[in-house]
């Protein structure tokens, strides 16, 4: 996904002279092509994320379209107040690319992985929050973000993530993409956990269940049309995210439900990361397994909940 970001932004910069790229000293050689073609529009801002966000604000206030790039843990975690005041309050068209949101960098320890970034960014007025599922959605999300007049946070993975789309889908910010149709359960996944969600849906078929799978890439603004349909058409709606259960997609959907004037037919099951830090080294695959985000564990959790709901209602 990071290489896709780099190549897509390099493409877009050719036709859009407003694009500038700011990064905080990560990704050696990743942006060589961009630097070679547009040397006056590339800035390594050093390991100084707060200043990088303010500089991006100043550029945006002067008509440019800055993209800022570093680890999610550092470009959301570190300069929150610069994002809040300079970007969100002033409603500036700056795109923050968060590398490795979720458990991507869990092997590097607690400083480098972040499962709170969606909660942090989602709480800010004017902010759009997108978690592309794969490289194809990343490409589309960057293009779509460039059309926005306010700040956008795009959480991406690292590299070589499985691709879930064979071709570029019709990508609209705030509109989920249905990957597979089904009538028993609706699963809304967001971000790079999507391949596991799809695999889990296939495992659930073995129980005779028909699963609708949605890449719910935009966490803010919510696709409320899709939620209305899902909660009236399905007994069970599931959210899956590689993010804390506090403040992410599951929270956003739960908030939406409690704001509805009438009870919903569908029940909500939220799957995500519990309210805790990891204190040991663990790779992403095993961390997902530990947090029951592997395809098998997802299928098991969802199946159990479906049975409960089904028994309760019949």
């Amino acid at each position, binding site marked *: 996904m990071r290489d896709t970001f780099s190549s897509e932004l390099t493409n877009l910069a050719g036709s859009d002279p407003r694009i*500038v790229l700011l990064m905080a000293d990560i990704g050696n050689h990743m942006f060589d092509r961009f630097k070679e073609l547009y040397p*006056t*529009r590339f*800035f390594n*801002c*050093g390991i*100084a994320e*707060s*200043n*990088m*966000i*303010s*500089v*991006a*604000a*100043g*550029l*945006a*206030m*002067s*008509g*440019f379209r*800055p993209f800022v790039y570093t680890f999610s843990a550092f470009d959301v975690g570190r300069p929150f*107040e*610069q994002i809040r*005041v*300079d970007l969100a*309050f*002033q409603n500036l068209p700056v795109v923050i690319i968060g590398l490795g949101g979720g458990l991507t960098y869990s092997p590097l320890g607690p400083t480098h992985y972040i499962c709170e970034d969606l909660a942090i960014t989602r709480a800010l007025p004017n902010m759009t929050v997108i978690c592309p599922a794969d490289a194809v959605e990343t490409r589309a999300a960057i293009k779509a973000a460039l059309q926005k007049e306010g700040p956008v946070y795009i959480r991406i993975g690292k590299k070589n993530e499985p691709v879930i789309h064979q071709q570029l889908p019709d990508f609209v910010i705030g509109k989920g993409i249905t990957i597979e149709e089904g009538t028993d359960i609706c699963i809304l996944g967001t971000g790079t956990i999507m391949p596991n969600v799809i695999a889990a849906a296939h495992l659930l078929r073995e129980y005779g269940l028909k699963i609708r799978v949605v890449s719910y890439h935009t966490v803010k603004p919510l696709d409320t049309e899709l939620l209305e349909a899902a909660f009236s058409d399905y007994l069970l709606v599931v959210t899956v995210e590689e993010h804390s259960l506090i403040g992410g997609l599951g929270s956003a959907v739960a908030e939406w439900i409690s704001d509805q004037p009438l009870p919903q037919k569908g029940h909500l099951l939220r799957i995500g990361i519990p309210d805790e830090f990891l204190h040991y080294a663990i790779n992403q695959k095993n961390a997902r397994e530990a947090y029951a985000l592997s395809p098998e564990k997802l299928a098991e959790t969802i199946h159990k909940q479906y049975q409960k709901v089904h028994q309760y209602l019949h």
Partner: protein
Amino acid sequence: MTDNTNIPDQLALALLSRQIRAEIIETSYKSEAMHLGGCLSCVDILVALYFGCMSVHPEDAGWPDRDRFILSKGHAALALYTVLAHRGFYPCEQIDTFNKDRSQYTEHPVWKNIPGIDATSGSLGHGLGIGSGMALAAKISGKPYRTFVLMSDGECDEGSVWESALFAPAHNLGNLVVIIDYNKWQACGRSNEIMNLSPLMQKFSAFGWTAYEVDGHNIGAMMTLFRSVLPSQERPVAIIAHTLKGRGVSFMEDDNNWHYRIPTADEVQKAHQELGFP
């Protein structure tokens, strides 16, 4: 680069400064707004910038080639609002709503609320980064404008200031000028004791800035210095302006209680008498 090629009459500007101080004190009283000390310390700097240096068109505040100004010490908004009114950006009476419910004239300035405000500020340590972005934008697009940022000395406690201080020289932002209103106080004590600020000029020099010290109440000296900054320079410029908090009123000068205190009607009258605006 600058459209006011004639050096304005310094005596007239000194008188204007006194009038602006008198108005700020009265507004502080009427609107029950604090931060008087830090407003009074930077009035002369603002007058030197807006009446003796910066290229702006008050009737066309968003003119793309204007010199930019960021009040990074946003708590001195009242001083800036009053100076901008006198410079013709809007009528002075508009400031009567300062700090009142639903007023656009907030205690810390908000971008786009009011003509002439180039950035939202109030949280310290943002302005130099935003100003660096504006200066960078001018360089990329070949624009002739300069960007001026006014910070407080207490603001230099913020780590982000020093991130920006490292960034600007690395990108040869010679079109960027930071002025520090060095009044030697911050909210709860002496700025040189709370953090190790001194020597401030040498710190900026060591970071690669062309640094100067100036009497922050000598309008003529500041005009000359500000006008000497050409956008074609390689190194950004830091100007340490030595000032007195509460400048212009004997019982406010160098008394840090006026960071938060709001004057009484009697005090306003006394201050006005001292300033010659009864």
